[in-house]
């Protein structure tokens, strides 16, 4: 049992902090304000290995572990939750399933470009009628010679507008329900594939969240990921990993909010004192930091078991449940400590509060996490 990070992870943390402070933080307000996907930042993330952290060196990745990946998402999200989720959706939801389930050819063709950031990845599971009830898939994939023909529309897809590669879940056999789902690697240039309208969102406004539309979309058979009928299982496993990323994102938002609030309360004067001198301020921040640390420990534990190739679905669900609710709570309370300035868009805290909310919703709502945890507890 060791709670200290290794020297390697400490140096990674140093890199993440420098990169986030110099490259990501200065752009965060603009990315939010203009709802613009930070293409130039993503190019730099690629150059420095952030887009393929847990990918083997043989495929152009950094060859690091999932803990290193979670720490990166936290550090980025501390200053810009949009950038955090871009990396998280790309890595957990597109790179990881190819890494876990891809054939040698698929890995060679897709992993290298994804891991170096030349290509951005995304994941299409959610539909208008299949959110929390992910089994209600309407998108279909029908074999046709050397291809599958896909039809359907995916909703709320992170990175949609910026991605080159999508993992798409579709029904190959409706009669079999979840066992009739399959996963496909779809490129943006495949005939019949298009990106639909862009969502106007409350937070993480630069993450290019759009619909994906497939109208008689032609996908070569070699782009089936895993076996036919295993798509739902693949999607659920993918989301287990994704939840570690979202937990890390939530921890980052929470810690970022605490950090700027600590600075703020040391400067802000009221009643002739710095507001940090009031016990309410001290107790609030102590409570928040305790929560943030607990969330981080849960997140690191989930990454640890994932790295050890041990079951981690329930750990990931707990990490995401706790961290996301902590992020919402902490950002709200930090804004309160900012008073009127907190409500002003001059300060970053209101953006953090808006960004935090989504972590309780995507990649499984808090309620879904509770379902996962309860089922592992065999409470049913």
């Amino acid at each position, binding site marked *: 049992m060791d709670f200290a990070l290794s020297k*390697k992870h400490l140096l990674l943390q140093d890199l993440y902090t420098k990169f986030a402070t110099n490259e990501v933080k200065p752009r965060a307000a603009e990315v939010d304000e203009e709802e613009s996907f930070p293409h130039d930042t993503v190019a730099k993330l690629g150059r420095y290995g952030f887009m393929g952290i847990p990918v083997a060196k043989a495929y152009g990745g950094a060859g690091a572990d999932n803990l290193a990946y979670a720490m990166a998402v936290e550090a980025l999200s501390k200053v810009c939750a949009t950038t955090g989720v871009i990396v998280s959706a790309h890595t957990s939801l597109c790179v990881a399933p190819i890494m876990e389930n891809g054939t040698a050819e698929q890995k060679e063709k897709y992993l290298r470009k994804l891991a170096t950031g030349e290509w951005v990845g995304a994941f299409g599971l959610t539909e208008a009628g299949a959110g929390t009830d992910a089994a209600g898939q309407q998108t279909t994939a029908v074999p046709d010679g050397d291809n599958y023909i896909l039809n359907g529309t995916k909703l709320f897809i992170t990175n949609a507008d910026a991605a080159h590669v999508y993992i798409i879940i579709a029904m190959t056999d409706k009669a079999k329900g979840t066992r009739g789902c399959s996963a496909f690697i779809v490129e943006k240039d495949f005939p019949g594939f298009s990106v639909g309208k862009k969502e106007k969102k409350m937070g993480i406004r630069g993450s290019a969240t759009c619909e994906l539309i497939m109208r008689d979309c032609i996908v070569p058979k070699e782009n089936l990921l895993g076996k036919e009928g295993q798509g739902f299982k693949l999607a659920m496993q993918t989301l287990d990993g994704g939840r570690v990323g979202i937990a890390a994102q939530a921890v980052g938002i929470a810690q970022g909010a605490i950090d700027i609030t600590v600075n703020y309360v040391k400067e802000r004067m009221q009643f002739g004192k710095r507001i940090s001198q009031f016990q309410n301020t001290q107790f609030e921040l102590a409570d928040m930091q305790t929560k943030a640390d607990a969330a981080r420990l849960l997140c690191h534990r989930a990454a640890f078991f994932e790295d050890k190739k041990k079951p981690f679905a329930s750990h990931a669900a707990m990490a995401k449940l706790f961290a996301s609710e902590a992020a919402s709570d902490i950002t709200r309370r930090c804004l309160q400590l900012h008073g009127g300035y907190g409500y002003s868009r001059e300060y970053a805290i209101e953006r953090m509060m808006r960004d935090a909310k989504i972590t309780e919703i995507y990649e499984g709502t808090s309620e879904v996490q509770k379902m996962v945890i309860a089922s592992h507890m065999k409470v049913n």
Partner: protein
Amino acid sequence: MKIIVCIKQVPNTNEVKLDQQTGTLIREGVPSIINPDDLAGIEAALAIKDSLGAHITVVSMGPPQADIALREALAMGCDAACLITDRAFAGADTWATSSTLAGAAQLLGYDLIITGRQAIDGDTAQVGPQMAEHLGIAHIPYAEDIKADGEKIIVTRQFEDRYQLLQAHYPVLVTALSELNQPRYMSVGGVVDAYDQKEVRLLTYADLETFVPVENIGLKGSPTRVKKSFTKSPKGKGELHQVSEDEAVEIIIQKLKGHLIL
């Protein structure tokens, strides 16, 4: 081409604060960094490696904790690292430090040596030129631009009021200014390699004694001594003047002169 880059791990002096009550330095919690001019030196070497191909060894003299500074350089893309660490080197001033580093350079072999102009904790700007003197090679200081090819290097050398374009053939030593470039970050994969694939070689006096006589290292090799060090007296309460405009101008001019700004 073989390049040696010399670096120093320094406390980030921008983060050092004075205790207003006692007037002493608060050193606790001050992060250690690679000296900024040295970081520019690393980047300059990496840029040469990118364009011409080169083997870069990064060298530091310091305590065992300087390991992390060398790992950082490895994670940026340097090929090898040496930490010169031995009690025998303790108490070295710039004279002894530069003769020790020169010994390491002889051991390792080089075409080009890059050092930072000066370290932010000592600010002497002496180690680079003195290292070149001990090695008997030319040096070009204050580089704000470097263009290298296989045989020679052309350096834009900064002065207060001008710059010179200077050319030298290898072997040569160049001292880098932080204005020289924008150093790259470490990469994630680079950090992994820095710990999993590469190592920091430890050099003690035993490794260098062929090249440096014992009277040229450590306290014995140092002509200078620190007699005492002290902090400046803390700031008193400021003064407030309600005077005519001409008097105000006079007060400002006198203050600027007093602080040697004029």
